[in-house]
């Protein structure tokens, strides 16, 4: 902790860490100094000059070097002749600041007058109106009239589209550069710049497509004027009449696209979502949202929504009553007996998932349930239950004494919010080791870049672990107090020294050793691992060992987490929607049920299937026959998906904003969302409600009448979730914390700021013991010159996102991306088609060329239209050897 410095602001004494800027010190005592260019999340530039204040320091006698005192014995303050910018003047001991001196107020008025000479004051037709800092500050400090009587910037270009999502009105821009700094510093997408000089200066995007960033929407939030606005909300720009900001009703919610569970506000107007804004949660998304979350809400109002139960008769769906549909389901489920299986998507709320497993286990007496559709869901492991990341972990605060070991994940695509936070940690000095088989965006900031051969990530981890034990870098206290089996592990690892794994991983032994040292020596260490590292027990065991021997477990800012694919993948595992575990990771008492993989094999032997919020056929087209051959299939969803088309009964569910519920993010943080709008019709029911109704028809006497009622039962039944009562989850953060962090003061929308609740892992219990496990890695390196890698991407072919017209151009189309030299070797150029053949299948794809890709990799994302990559994968790993033929 740095030294505290005490100063006086407007006569009030305040102590802040040395190096703090005056503006932040003033915030601490509730003095808000007006400013445009400064933003506490961005670097300081000091250009708008609105925050000028009067500053003085104690006078010192030059000869004696003693402070000069007045007759009363108080130090004499010497005020600087010039006003100082509060945003970029650091505090010093004994300093005195007057925030509203006569001179400062005059300066403020002067600067506002200057700014308004180049601002059109077109507030009546500006989307920012009502939550606009320029409007607010002009109201508070402006002259009330302008002496500038010339043609304003009206002639500057208006409505310049910066890509599909953002519109720039240059005549409103006051060149504060917040947008540019956000893109450069937070997002790492260097796509904006200032062009020209002086008054001709303007913000430009120099990429093609324009403003090419997954995070661009955030610039519309931090723009202190209406220069950057979103096309989605823009006044009268879309086909709907515009709505003013103050007409919106703001409801707190959680992103259904984000595995971090980004907090957001749904701005609704007459029962419709009109915009999505971030809701500050410093532990999750700070004040940012991805464009996918911000603009992907249109599925709610889609005209393709299911509005009534449908029953298939003679191959055609007919609208039915809930009464008829439920009766039919009860009869058929009853008939199926034990030959029934259920698949529930990881987008469902915790309440839905809990009741889903309860229906199967308690009413239908079956363990045949799963949420993992082939490889698209959680990597099955116990690491989250055993270790996870420590409670209170805040990647948003990680700094110099910390290290992050990122293994096999492109966070920018797979966990965009986590990408922003990891990038921020690196900026603050956290050491990032980025290991993957190919270039990923975090390589631009990573301290150590490790490029392993696909399939050898486990060897890399073993090599690092061997180094740590060999050099005695393990956390000896932790090893002594809480671990067993260290000697056995040491013996086993003799076969995996850095020298021995250098060949198979393709990484130099010294580099492995250095990475191991960096990770072991850091005070805090976090391992994040994704599917590009592999998907086997040997890998998980090796990651577990690495975390344990370094003692990076069971405490804040330490631990392990998988990069889970969906917003509630964690909750689905926590609440037992897996064939072998009950809620809370208890093993099933009786026989282990069928996994999704088994249920989706052609000869699965099931008579009935209940599929909730999972477009299985859309995601993996090869599963079609398994569903077709099932006698009775119920699909419960928002849309007539490819899977629903095969069903016998289709049930219309409520979308997230139409109901309440909770999600558990990949850091095990449980967060609730509130109902904001009504469903298209009253015949759409919440998933938990439908499940309860089915259970009722089958004779169960459940009494759930609300999602929080279900959560109440979960808190009683599942000890992991015992603190997750709605009361706890909806508790606003303390006033003190709010003052510390709250940034959005001055903006018109309000919504509760909550931080959610994390459940404790086994490691959190300081009395728990761990046995080190070693599992010999199987050599499952793809035996091929070319390896197909199929990671998830942000803009996938999902049903919900495809309802957002505004994002349509961003949705990725299936293609095979190759390195230039491979393309050259095969005489391929952009747009050509290749045939990719693996041991599983063969598909034709158009190619793209990417100079950053290694020569042995062909990249084809999963979850795209037609599930092309899935047809080549063997259902075990997301990489596989392929042959390419022109």
């Amino acid at each position, binding site marked *: 902790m740095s030294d505290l410095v005490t100063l006086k602001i407007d006569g009030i004494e305040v102590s802040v860490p040395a190096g703090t800027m005056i503006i932040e010190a003033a915030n601490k005592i509730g003095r808000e100094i007006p400013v445009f260019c400064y933003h506490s999340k961005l670097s*300081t*530039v*000091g*250009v*708008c*000059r*609105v925050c*000028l204040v009067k500053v003085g320091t104690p006078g010192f006698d030059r000869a004696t070097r003693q402070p000069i005192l007045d007759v009363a014995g108080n130090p004499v303050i010497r005020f600087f*002749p*010039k*006003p100082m910018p509060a945003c*970029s003047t650091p505090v010093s001991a004994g300093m005195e600041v007057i925030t509203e001196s006569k001179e400062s107020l005059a*300066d403020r008025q*002067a*600067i506002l*007058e*200057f*700014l308004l*000479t*180049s601002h059109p004051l077109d507030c009546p037709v500006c989307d920012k109106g009502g939550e606009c800092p320029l409007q607010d500050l002009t109201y508070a400090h402006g002259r009330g009239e302008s*002496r*500038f009587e*010339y043609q304003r910037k009206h002639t500057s270009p208006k409505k310049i589209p910066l890509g599909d999502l953002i519109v720039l009105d240059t005549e409103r821009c*006051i*060149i504060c550069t917040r947008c540019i700094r956000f893109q450069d510093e937070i997002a790492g997408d260097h796509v904006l*710049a*200032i062009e*020209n*000089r*002086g*008054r*001709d*200066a303007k913000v430009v995007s120099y990429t093609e497509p324009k403003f090419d960033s997954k995070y661009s929407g955030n610039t519309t939030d931090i723009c202190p004027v209406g220069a950057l606005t979103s096309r989605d909300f823009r006044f009268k720009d879309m086909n709907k009449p515009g709505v003013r900001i103050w007409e919106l009703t703001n409801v707190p919610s959680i992103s259904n696209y984000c595995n971090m569970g980004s907090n957001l506000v749904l701005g609704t107007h007459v029962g419709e979502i009109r915009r999505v804004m971030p809701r500050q949660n410093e532990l999750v998304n700070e004040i940012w949202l991805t464009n996918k979350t911000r603009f992907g809400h249109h599925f709610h109002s889609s005209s393709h929504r299911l509005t009534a139960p449908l029953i298939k008769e003679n191959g055609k769906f007919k609208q039915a009553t809930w009464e008829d549909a439920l009766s039919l389901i009860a009869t058929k489920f009853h008939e199926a007996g034990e030959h029934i299986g259920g698949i529930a998507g990881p987008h469902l709320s915790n309440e839905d998932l809990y009741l889903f497993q309860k229906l199967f286990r308690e009413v239908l007496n079956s363990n045949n349930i799963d949420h993992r559709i082939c490889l698209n869901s959680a990597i099955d492991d116990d690491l989250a239950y055993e270790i996870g990341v420590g409670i209170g972990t805040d990647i948003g605060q990680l700094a110099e004494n910390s290290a992050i070991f990122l293994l096999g994940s492109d966070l920018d695509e797979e966990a965009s919010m986590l990408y922003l936070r990891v990038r921020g940690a690196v900026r603050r000095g956290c050491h990032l080791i980025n290991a993957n088989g190919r270039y990923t965006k975090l390589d631009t900031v990573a301290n150590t870049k490790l490029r392993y051969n696909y399939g050898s990530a486990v060897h890399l981890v073993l090599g690092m672990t061997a180094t740590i034990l060999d050099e005695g870098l393990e956390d000896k206290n932790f090893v002594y107090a809480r671990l067993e089996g260290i000697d056995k592990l040491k013996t086993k690892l003799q076969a995996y020294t850095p020298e021995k794994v250098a060949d198979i991983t393709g990484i130099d032994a010294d580099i492995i050793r250095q990475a191991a040292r960096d990770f072991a020596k850091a005070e805090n260490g976090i391992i994040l691992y994704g599917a590009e590292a592999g998907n086997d027990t040997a890998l998980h065991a090796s990651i577990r060992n690495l975390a344990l021997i370094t003692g990076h477990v069971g405490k804040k800012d330490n631990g392990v987490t998988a990069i889970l694919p969906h917003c509630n993948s964690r909750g689905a595992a926590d609440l037992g929607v897996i064939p072998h575990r009950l809620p809370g990771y208890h093993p099933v008492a009786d026989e282990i049920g069928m996994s999704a993989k088994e249920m989706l094999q052609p000869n699965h032997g099931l008579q009935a299937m209940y599929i909730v919020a999972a477009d299985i056929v859309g995601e993996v087209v090869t599963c079609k026959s398994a569903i077709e051959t099932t006698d009775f299939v119920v699909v419960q969803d928002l849309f007539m998906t490819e899977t629903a088309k095969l069903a016998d009964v289709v049930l219309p569910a409520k979308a997230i904003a139409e109901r309440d519920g909770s999600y558990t993010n990949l850091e095990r943080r449980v967060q609730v969302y509130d109902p904001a709008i009504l469903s298209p019709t009253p015949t759409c029911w919440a998933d938990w409600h439908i499940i309860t109704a089915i259970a009722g028809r089958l004779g169960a006497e459940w009494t759930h009448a609300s999602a929080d009622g279900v959560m109440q039962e979960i808190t009683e039944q599942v000890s992991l979730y015992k603190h997750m009562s709605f009361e706890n989850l909806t508790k606003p953060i303390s006033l003190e914390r709010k003052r510390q962090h709250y940034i959005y003061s001055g903006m018109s929308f309000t919504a509760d700021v909550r931080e959610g609740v994390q459940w404790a892992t086994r490691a959190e219990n300081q009395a728990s013991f761990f046995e080190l496990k070693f599992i010999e890695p199987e050599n499952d390196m793809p035996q091929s010159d070319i390896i197909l890698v199929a990671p998830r991407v942000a803009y996938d072919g999902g049903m919900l996102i495809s309802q957002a017209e505004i994002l349509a151009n961003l949705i990725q189309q299936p293609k095979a991306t190759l390195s230039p030299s491979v393309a050259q070797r095969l005489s391929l150029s952009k747009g050509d088609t290749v045939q990719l053949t693996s041991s599983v299948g063969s598909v034709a794809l158009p190619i793209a060329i990417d100079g950053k890709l290694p020569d042995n990799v062909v990249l084809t994302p999963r979850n795209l239209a037609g599930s092309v990559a899935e047809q080549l994968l063997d259902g075990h790993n997301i990489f596989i050897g392929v042959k390419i033929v022109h």
Partner: protein
Amino acid sequence: MTNKYLDKHVLLRNKDIPNIRDINVYIAHGGYDALKKALTVMNPGEVTQVVKTANLRGRGGAGFPAGVKWSFIPPNVKPVYVVVNADESEPGTFKDRELMGENPHQVIEGIILCAFAVGAERAYIYGRGEFKNTFVPLKKAIDEAYNNGLLGKNIMNTDFSMDIFLHLGAGAYICGEETALLNSLEGYMGQPRSRPPFPAAEGLYAKPTVINNVETLSNVPPIILNGSDWYRRYGTERSPGIKIFSLSGHVKNPGNYELPLGAPLRYLIEELGGGTMSGLPIKGILPAGASAPMIPPEHFDVMMDYESMAEANTTLGSASFIVMDETVDMAWAAEKMVHFFKHESCGKCSPCREGNYWLEQVMHRIRSGKGTSFDIDLLTKITHQMTDNCFCPLGEFAVNPINATIKHFRSDYEKYITL
């Protein structure tokens, strides 16, 4: 006898010695002797100390003591850079151009001495974009220095090695401001940085950096060679030494003149400059291009040193005197200068970006006969709103032409007011 105050040129030696831009001629006339002295019998600290004792003040305009600047370089941080500010853009200033074009080896020797003193191994010369012709002889001189073992590895067979790189800007006045220069040199937009950190702590590529003007560095070799006592014989107690004065405007003999600091302005204009071409009386003199307040006739007897100029409510700056005779309409002159500042404002901070634009608009209105007397006061008010509020000196200086001309020549404005 060069002039009444100086027996021979110290900086513009090209005026005394033909072809001194050739390395052999330069060496034959004592060139690189100072470097030899520094490298063989002095240590870096002593070099800095001599410059400090000589109280060589920065010739770019601010007048900050060069030796003090050098001593701010932290001893333990490497690398250290020397950056030579050759972005001579102040209207009416053309001294560095002559130094680099006609006596380039003295500049180079000064750079090497500075680098030796502060422990730098790389020096960058940042030249004004329009200086591409001037850079031809300078580049040639640098090549000659390399060929003679005066640059590169083991200079003069000592342990000291250094390189000089030339870089031309794209033509922006603001890049004469040292931090904007650094941004431009790094490839960013030419806009000033916040200070602190000062360049001595975090300058080029965030490393300790000394930035000196070309003329400042040209003073170093004679100081090292002859000692600080010799140097302090020239000039005044607080403004010691020799300075080049660029004289232009309505004078018979415009050009660069070398004089000790503290010489009378009247001597420069009337004896050296030969008075006005037209023979008409002088109306006003700009002492430092467009940036400094104009000198009205009552101050024509001022001495040309930092302190005396300040007493006359102006600054010495880069010492470029633009003389205007009675025929000049001072409102017209101010409009030209306001246009210049509006054109050169980088746009980073609001008061400079918007203020200069507004000033120009009001000036246009007055000069086109559409103004009222309110507009003259408005000009003053706008300048007040800019003063002390700008990010860097550009915006602060931009108000000088208007304020000084309104103060001393208000009638030139009033004659446009017909409404």
